[in-house]
Each structure stands twice: as C-alpha cells, then as structure tokens.
C-alpha cells in the first residue's frame, strides 16, 4: 500500500489536498508498521522511492550500534528532485505526529510499548536521516524559494526527532 501510494504521488501531479491526504495515509501506514520491530527494509525502500540515491548504513540497525563518526555525505541535494525530497520530509513529519500526538493505542501500556519499540529500532534511522538532511542544507544552500521550504521542513523534522525521547515524560506528568 505504501509503495502504490508513493508511486501515485510521484508519477502524477495531484491537487494539493489530494496529495496531502495521500501523504497522511502513507505516514499512517508507516506508523502502524513500526509497532513491530522488523520493518527496517520497508523504511529504507520507502525513502529510496522519494530520494533514490539514499542508502542506510547497515550498522544503523539499532540505537545501540550507532556510531555517528562514520556518517558520510552520500548524496547531493542537486542530484535529487527537491519537490520529492520535500514530500518525503512531510510524510516523515506526519508520521512522527501520528506516533506521538494522535496515538491509536487503546491503553497507556500499548502506547508506551509503541514508543519504546520505535525508539529502540527506528529512531537511529531517523536521526541518521536528519543528520543527512542538515548536511544537505549546508552543502547545497541557495536563495531559491524551494530552498526555504526545505529549510523549514528540515527544522520541523529535526524538532520531532529531538523531542521524541521526551514524549513519554510529557504525557506522564
């Protein structure tokens, strides 16, 4: 479903309200996948649909194995389609919102479990992607209108990542 919706988004020029609801649906589908901890490949494939040269290094599987020193810039913003890149950022932001604010969990424990599983299995991926997004900004900044949209979206995306570890404590007290 994620694959078909993404292809639809990318191949045809839809009116913005339809594109928005499609992006939300992709985000919601991603979110429901992440309640289990074995969907890293789906995540990577989804990102590659929008930004084709993107590769996740294999040692970024869990937060325990994160080594930020090995992060190298793997692609240039000029190489990828900026509107597709913005679409991907919007989907990921929407996914974080579904994960943290609009939870569909039935109980508090289910919600907490979902938060922990995501943190242990996927947060490193998103952190890595955020770092890449920052590097792209520094490497490819120019004064075009598109670039300001990229800056806004990147900052919003990073805010979601940095706030994520505090999600539970915000709700508990």
């Amino acid at each position: 479903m994620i694959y078909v919706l993404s292809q639809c988004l990318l191949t045809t020029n839809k009116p913005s309200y339809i594109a928005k609801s499609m992006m939300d649906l992709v985000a919601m589908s991603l979110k429901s996948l992440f309640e289990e901890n074995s969907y890293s490949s789906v995540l990577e494939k989804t990102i590659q649909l929008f930004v084709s040269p993107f590769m996740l290094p294999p040692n970024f599987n869990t937060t325990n194995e994160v080594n930020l020193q090995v992060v190298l810039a793997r692609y240039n913003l000029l190489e990828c389609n900026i509107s597709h890149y913005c679409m991907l950022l919007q989907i990921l932001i929407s996914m974080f919102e579904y994960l943290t604010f609009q939870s569909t969990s039935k109980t508090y424990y289910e919600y907490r479990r979902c938060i922990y599983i995501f943190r242990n299995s996927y947060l490193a991926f998103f952190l890595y992607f955020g770092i890449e997004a920052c590097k792209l900004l520094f490497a490819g900044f120019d004064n075009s209108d598109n670039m300001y949209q990229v800056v806004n979206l990147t900052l919003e995306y990073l805010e979601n990542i940095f706030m994520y570890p505090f999600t539970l404590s915000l709700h508990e007290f």
Partner: protein
Amino acid sequence: LNDFNDGLTDSISLYFWENLYKSSRKSLRLYIFSESLNLTSMIGTLQNLANEIVSGSQRSPAANEEFKAIINDTRVTSECLSNLNSSDAFAFVFCNNMLKLMEQEEFNIVSETRSEENITNYGQADTVKAKVYG
C-alpha cells in the same frame, strides 16, 4: 465442482475437499458466488459513491458510510489501490476513509491514566498485553 477439482494440485485439492466436507454444499456455492460478485463489481460502485460524496449533496454522509463499509473489507483494497489514478474524487475519498478506518480506535493519552487501576479498567483483552509489556 468436478472441473474445479481437475486443475488443482493434490494438497490444495485435499484442503478443498476437506473444507467441503466441513461445510454444506449449499453454503459453499453461495460463498464462491458472492466472492466472484464482490471482485468484479466493486470499483464502479465505489467511483459512483465517491462522485456523489464530493458533489456535496444531502446524501453525502450516507454515501460516505457506505463507501467506508465497502473498503473496510481487505479483499477490495488491492483493487482500490490499482485504480487510484483513475479519478481524483475517488483517490481523495479512498485515502481519507482509509485514514479514518486506521484511526478508528483512537485513544487519547491523558494524565488520568497514571494509576494502574484506571488502566486495567479499559478492557479485558488489553490488560494481558499491559502486563506482558509493562
């Protein structure tokens, strides 16, 4: 049923006859009939409903409920996805209703759920999960 059996491999055939044995012939035939009916006719109905919903007539809410009930059946999902590009109205209505279906059991996390007594009162099946993962 004889023609059907000829084209099947042994394992599927065994499975088929075993199930036939379990259910009565009449209900099995009805089941096969309703399956084929579902798969051929749904997308046209859905597209008509979508146009009706988007037009904003008085029947829109009722039509939307009907639409949601149809796509709630997962057998229709792949057909819907393959027709997403056919019309904007259909894509819009389909995406929004899928979102609603996925969000259906929305539960707001509020500070009242702090004590364990409150949490265990929400549902019997969920208390088991709560104990395992909590």
